[in-house]
């Protein structure tokens, strides 16, 4: 959108699109809800049934989509800079698999180990913690590899291998677990934006907001990091500290959204590129708000598409994000042969 000249105009358009998709998302579903009804709901004059659908189903789900989209996209943007690789993202580099493995241990492991901790493990924040720990561990592992090998495609291969490895262990766990636990894990791993309890949604929203805000002081450092570690140091970045900080926040954002919604494919990878293309900006101070807004928009849109095709049925969210994301990746590979 080259006609958008100034940054403030770009941000306005991005957030206008976001608002539009948020409202459209609320209006769409098995019960069609008019824009009128949504406005009425805001002012508190809807009937009880509609009020329940909007307030207890539609809005929580839309909020989930919004925050998951924003978190994953911001995390993807930071990872692409940190790894200096256009194909980096929470899903590709195995963070989601790390989260999955940790959650698999939590959901399926306790039936094997007969752990006395099982009461604690059934708490919603236990999944969040495990998921965060899983993504953090993988992120450190991948970054450790990235520091040793200069070639960025090797790092991607390492990420894929870590994914496979984590997948294999998860496979073993699911072989030995009970059918009930396996079902719980399987549903979780397919990815879903629905069915978050109030407390889960609260954790998601609070952690996402905190995480996104924590990125703000490091946007300048991220710009310097584009040129590589040595240039970043020469431009005043305390390298070790900045890297550790960014990894921690990234893992937090990926961990919390994966915890409650399962591993969601491609959003973290594709959205930063979409925002670069759409708004033609590249420095993080400008790109970050646009990526966050686009992330929320894309996720709301993907969720909306999930609801559309079959009356009363929802497609799995991962199917739709992959349908959008995979072509974006193909396009990138074809456009830049030297990614």
């Amino acid at each position: 959108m080259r006609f958008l000249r100034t940054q403030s105009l770009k941000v306005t358009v991005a957030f206008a699109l976001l608002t539009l998709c948020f409202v459209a998302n609320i209006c769409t579903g098995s019960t069609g809800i008019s824009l009128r009804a949504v406005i009425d709901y805001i002012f508190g004059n809807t009937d009880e049934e509609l009020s329940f659908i909007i307030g207890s189903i539609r809005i929580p789900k839309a909020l989930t989509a919004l925050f998951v989209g924003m978190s994953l996209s911001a995390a993807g943007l930071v990872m692409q800079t940190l790894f200096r690789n256009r194909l980096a993202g929470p899903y590709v580099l195995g963070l989601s698999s790390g989260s999955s493995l940790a959650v698999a241990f939590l959901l399926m492991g306790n039936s094997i180990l007969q752990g006395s901790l099982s009461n604690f493990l059934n708490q919603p924040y236990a999944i969040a913690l495990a998921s965060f720990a899983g993504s953090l561990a993988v992120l450190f592992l991948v970054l450790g590899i990235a520091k040793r090998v200069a070639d960025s495609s090797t790092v991607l291969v390492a990420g894929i291998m870590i994914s496979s490895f984590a997948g294999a262990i998860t496979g073993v766990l699911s072989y030995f677990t009970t059918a009930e636990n396996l079902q719980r894990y399987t549903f979780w791993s397919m990815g879903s934006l629905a069915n978050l309890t109030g407390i889960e949604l609260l954790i998601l929203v609070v952690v996402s907001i905190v995480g996104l805000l924590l990125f703000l002081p490091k946007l300048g450092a991220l710009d310097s990091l584009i040129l590589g570690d040595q240039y970043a140091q020469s431009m005043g970045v305390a390298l070790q500290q900045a890297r550790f900080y960014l990894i921690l926040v990234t893992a937090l954002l990926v961990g919390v959204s994966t915890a409650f919604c399962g591993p969601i494919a491609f959003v973290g990878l594709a959205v930063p590129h979409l925002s670069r293309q759409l708004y033609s900006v590249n420095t993080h101070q400008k790109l970050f708000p646009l990526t966050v807004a686009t992330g929320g928009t894309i996720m709301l849109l993907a969720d909306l598409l999930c609801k559309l095709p079959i009356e009363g049925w929802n497609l799995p969210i991962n199917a739709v994000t992959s349908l959008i994301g995979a072509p974006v990746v193909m396009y990138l590979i074809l456009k830049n042969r030297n990614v």
Partner: protein
Amino acid sequence: MELRLENLVIGFEKKQLNELFSANFKAGNVYAILGQNGIGKSTLLKTIAGILEPIGGSCIWDGTNLKQLTPEQRAKEVAIVLTGRPFVADLTVEELIGLGRNPHKSWFYKESATDRALCHEAATICNCLPFLNKKAVELSDGQFQLVMLARAVAQDTPILLLDEPTTHLDPAKKSELLFILHKLAYEKGKLVLFSTHDVEFMFEAVKEVLVCTSDGFKLEHIDAIKDTAAINRIFPSKFLTYSEKLQQLKYR
């Protein structure tokens, strides 16, 4: 103002590159660092820039040990242009030059008029204006080298370090570079220090040169190395001679 390297020993954890040496470089001058591949020219520049830690000794600028500064403070004193072509994502030339302003910005503070003016001045000095709106990946290696120099100039530091700046430059661009470096030193008062093994360029560019050999690092006058014995001391080769008549190296 001057940069004093005191009893400096550089290298990496497992490998010390030189015996300790001292040298003084004055602001408003251009100096070269000459030596064969692998002798430690880049390591020395990176040590001064604070990218690498010295094994011993210190780099003192205007009475301050550079090691005692925070990374941000140091980035306001020393800028560096490294060799090689870094990954630049989709940055435009203008954005890339603008990165030089990062150490001067706090995160909530937008690009100021001063930032824009300094970037524009840097781009003008380094002849980057014609391709300011291009993507950095589309540039030729020579143009890219000038853009990276402009980025370092925009960083607005009294010390400017360049690692092998003449690599990838054709004779026209080399002459531009020479003009730019002299302008930065003589008009802007910067201390310009570049590593090279491009002997002809160095003869044109500097009066004093830090000669790096396995016997030690020593600041010498340029005339002291204008003979075959001296050249062979720096670049040991039986095929290399210095022609006094042509004032350049000959391969025999």
